[in-house]
């Protein structure tokens, strides 16, 4: 299943400040698209708009999958998750008291369609099969990110690096068609960052998902993105091939604050 994302004229205001000022771009199905831009450019705000944690005052965000096209704006986050939007958080968030394996089961809540309250409690009508399925899935993704040996540790006891991996595992477990990654390398060591690029590619391939990724680590984002979106002051400056975007005069200017 593939998903195409179309963002048009999204506006978000905090008081008098425009965090997003008519931002818009498209992401082709199956692509990995990187978002770059200085702090305050509106990257995370835009990601919040896509995943439903922030309500834009104007604009449209459309997701086209094999099941047809849907407008995401106006839907609560949980519904977007069900439509196939998965995201990670800038500060790596998971359920801090739940062991990683339990977290992975909890994340797949929505995939257990045969497990209503009564069926779950009595263990009938496919509820057991559901449990077995999500458990198998959890083990699979744990292995994929290399966390099998830490599966029983609560998230609150993990380092940022391991928490990132656990969060990635969780979001992969829900099989999103659109994967949003907010600075997956922030707060982790250089050595781990180097391992991250290939891991992200591998996960994207495993899911066959469209990926939108915010990242400050230029080598990382250059190595994994099919194309880049550069943002500044709530607008999209340019989009295109990574090399072209990186050398775009306006991108250089917004980063270095000088007239290039």
């Amino acid at each position: 299943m593939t998903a195409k994302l179309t963002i048009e004229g999204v506006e978000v205001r905090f008081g008098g400040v425009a965090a997003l000022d008519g931002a818009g771009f498209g992401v082709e199905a199956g692509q990995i698209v990187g978002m770059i831009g200085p702090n305050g450019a509106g990257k995370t705000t835009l990601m919040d708009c896509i995943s439903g944690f922030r309500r834009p005052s104007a604009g449209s965000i459309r997701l086209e999958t094999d099941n047809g096209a849907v407008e995401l704006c106006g839907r609560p986050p949980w519904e977007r998750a069900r439509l196939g939007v998965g995201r990670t958080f800038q500060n790596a968030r998971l359920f801090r008291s739940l062991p990683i394996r339990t977290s992975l089961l909890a994340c797949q809540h929505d995939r257990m369609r045969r497990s209503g309250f009564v069926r779950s409690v009595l263990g009938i009508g496919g509820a057991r099969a559901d449990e077995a399925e999500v458990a198998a899935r959890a083990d699979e993704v744990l292995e994929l990110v290399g966390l099998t040996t830490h599966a029983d540790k609560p998230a609150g006891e993990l380092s940022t690096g391991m928490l990132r991996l656990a969060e990635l595992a969780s979001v992969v477990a829900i099989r999103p068609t659109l994967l949003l990654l907010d600075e997956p390398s922030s707060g982790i060591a250089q050595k781990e960052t180097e391992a991250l690029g290939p891991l992200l590619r591998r996960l994207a391939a495993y899911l066959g998902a469209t990926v939108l990724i915010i990242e400050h680590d230029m080598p990382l984002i250059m190595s994994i993105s099919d194309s880049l979106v550069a943002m500044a002051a709530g607008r999209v400056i340019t989009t295109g091939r990574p090399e072209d975007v990186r050398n775009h005069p306006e991108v250089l200017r917004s980063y270095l604050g000088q007239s290039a």
Partner: protein
Amino acid sequence: MNGLTGFFPLGLVTNGLMGAFPPGLVTGAVYALLAMGLVLIYKATRVPNFAYGAMATFVGFFHYSLVTGKRYAINVHLLYVRLHLHAQPRLPFWGAMPVSLIVAGLLGLVIERLVIRPFAKAPAVTLIIVTLALATVLSAITQQLFGANDLIVASRNAIFPRTVALSVVGVKVSYEQAGVIVLVVALAAAVFAFFRFTSTGLAIRAVATDRDVASLLGVSSRQLSIVSWLGGSMVAGLAGIALASLLVTSNPNLLLTLTIKGFAAAIIGGMTSFPIAVAAGFAIGVVEELTRHLFPRFAGAPEVVTLGAVIIVLSLRPSWIFRGIRDDQDSGVTAGGGAPTSALAKRIDPAEAFRVLRAAVPLDGPVMCALGRWRWVIPAALVALAVGFPLLPLPSFWALAANLTVIDLLVVLSFVVLIGWLGQISVAQGAFIAVGGAGTVVCAHVVHLPFPLPVFGAVLFSIPVSVLVGLPALRLRGLHLVIATLAFGLAAQTALLPRFSASTRVVIPSLLNSDGAKYEFSLLFAALAFALAWRVSTTRIGRSFRALRDSEIVASAYGIRPVRTKLTGFVLSGGIAALAGALLTYQLGSVSTVYGSVFFSITWLSQSVVAGITSIAGPVIGALLFGLYPQLTQGSVSASHLSFLPEAVAGALTIVIMAINPEGLASMSRFVRSRVSAFSTEDDELLAIEAATEAATAPLPEDERELVNT
């Protein structure tokens, strides 16, 4: 009232309404006084002080014991030494006042140092539980020291004369009533001036606006905490003295009730604004009196109105209400993961204690192995003991005690589901006991359902009520939710309980003719409830509860629906509590007023926390420790020698447990293990990174390569 004007509806209404104002203002003054002290402490320390009413009661009892000249006597028998100390201090009212206020201040300082400071960085929910526990400790101490009877303030000891001072719109107002109103307004003005014009007041306002910035600018939050607890506690003392006089009577339960109203007023002022809080206090008082005048026959109407007002104001969320409130992102209910935050817990190192214990007790080897293999024996023996209990040759009151213990078990379980799993802190469980009792009565005697069905009927009956209580929870959390549920509990206590308690009796079916049979009946239902809860906790539903407890945002990012999940939890928890209420009604033959009270809910909350709020084993520990044990020890003691020690101990233990391990006794062993393993995680981490690197660089297996190509 004049009979002729009363004949015309309009005359009745206007007369009634105007007549409601003077007493309304008096009641309002009470609420305003309480709200003031709450705001004072919250503003500087962000501690929602639910022990406020208990502090006020303590000082009130102390003051009047000084005024009436209560005799204190201590007898010490130690080998050959026989000491008999006694004192009978007595002071006139205003002479005792400074002494009482000093005692109030000292009380505040002691509480600040012993109870509040260890929790300086704790989540809001922890502070709520801790101060609620403190309230039970203080009430128990008060009753132990000054007697379990209500305080009655005679006219000669009143704060101001009770003679009529003036008459307003045909309503007589005494010097006492007018005096208290003036006192409250003057005090409010003084406190307001303190915040406006003194540097300490300015510092507190700075801290209230932004704690971190204030501390960077050199404001010592510790000093402010001391100052505000000193001041707040003196206001509490004054309130305790004035209220006892104004209401003629005082007891811990009454003051707790009034404190909830005080909280309602304080929360409308955003817990930070004195003028709004005081005005809201007066407004609530007046509205309550108006309601009382309009619906004289409807017991509890004022409480229902207050509840409605609070919920409406909180749900409308005017901006000022949330300005000064700390709104934790997550529920704050701790359940494993991460080190404890309190200073006390850092000082006690359970890992070290565990090592010392291991070294001292050589349990390794065959003993531990045997224990591991025969693990099932203990639960099995417990179950056998529980089922066969009535067959044991024991005094007859044991069966009653055991039945009440089973009911305790269910109440604690309902707390575990709601607070421990779902992270929604509600203090309205007592209300569900009332609902369950009322449902049983209705099903048995109005609908005429045959015998075991009213129990199920009561549970069904609770569902709409659960949804009603759960609705505010969809928008509120932490402090706001606690206050909304307290208001609900209060409304149920005053509006629902009196209707169903004394007059209506449930006919006990012949099947339940003995206490033993009642016990087995309760045990059967408890077992069902436990099986249900256990299944819920181990499957999808329980996981979604806990995910939501840990983070609502993350949970919804993974497709968990907060609204539906919360309501499910509320219905489940309310159903279990209603079941307890139904069983209790069959035990007692009528709806219990005691069990349904807010006061009891709070005690239960403390006990649940001590026993283990996140674990399904918690209820068992809680019921045995706080249900069975005190009932058995008190079964043989006459009522006049009632000891309040169990309550005090449970409350004090709650505070200690919250400081060491907020998960309670049930998870102590897991807690210790996690602290031990915390020392060895660093090596593991390096391994994980290597594993991740390896996984990432390994060539794709065949099937996945196909995936990439398609």
